[in-house]
């Protein structure tokens, strides 16, 4: 039942050890840096120290109440992340499958649009471009 913000890599496998004991269903989501354009070598992720960890903990606790979670974990990285590196993970544990799925989905929608992170795509030539927020992410949040 906690959120962490860190520049260091995390080990999804290690994080899952012992997670959700006593639950009936555990869902994890892991996001990985992906080069869609063919021009990108890395992401640089800026965040708002002080606010970030508290915001993630708030969203996690809100989701825990809303979906009756027995456990949850959020890890989000910042700094320089090469293509192929893990960016973040969410894990949710609940008595029933639907709640665990929905809570993970819900947390991802919150993180996409409401967690104070900003991504910059770093190209092969070293130039960087800020990633624009997607209207579809904002719409996804309105589902809940």
């Amino acid at each position, binding site marked *: 039942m906690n959120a962490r913000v860190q520049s260091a890599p995390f080990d999804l496998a290690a994080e899952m050890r012992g997670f959700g004991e006593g639950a009936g269903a555990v869902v994890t989501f892991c996001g990985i840096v992906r080069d869609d354009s063919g021009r990108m070598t890395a992401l640089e992720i800026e965040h708002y120290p002080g606010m970030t960890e508290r915001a993630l903990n708030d969203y996690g606790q809100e989701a825990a109440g809303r979906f009756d979670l027995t456990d949850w974990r959020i890890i989000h990285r910042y700094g320089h992340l090469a293509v192929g590196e893990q960016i*973040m993970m969410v894990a949710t544990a609940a008595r029933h499958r639907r709640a665990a799925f929905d809570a993970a989905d819900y947390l991802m929608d919150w*993180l996409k649009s409401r967690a104070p992170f900003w991504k910059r795509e770093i190209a092969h030539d070293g130039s960087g471009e*800020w990633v*624009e927020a997607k209207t579809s*992410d904002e719409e996804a949040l309105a589902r809940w």
Partner: protein
Amino acid sequence: MTLDILYFAWLRERVGQPRERIETEAATIRDLVAELAVRDEWHAAAFADMSAVRCAVDQQLADLDTQLAGSREVAFFPPMTGG
């Protein structure tokens, strides 16, 4: 009142600094933005399109009508792109 103003991502780049401390009597974020935008051309560029600017007051998401009384820290940034 004394306020710490923080800027992130391209707002930080346009303003040219990550934070500044100011004295203001602004009642709301909207008033504060009006004050900051006329400081110089860099601030003007940062606040040129408010539809692309989000903000937080004391590390809680806020909007233009949020009251500033008693606040200590205001942050401006583009729409977030986490996850």
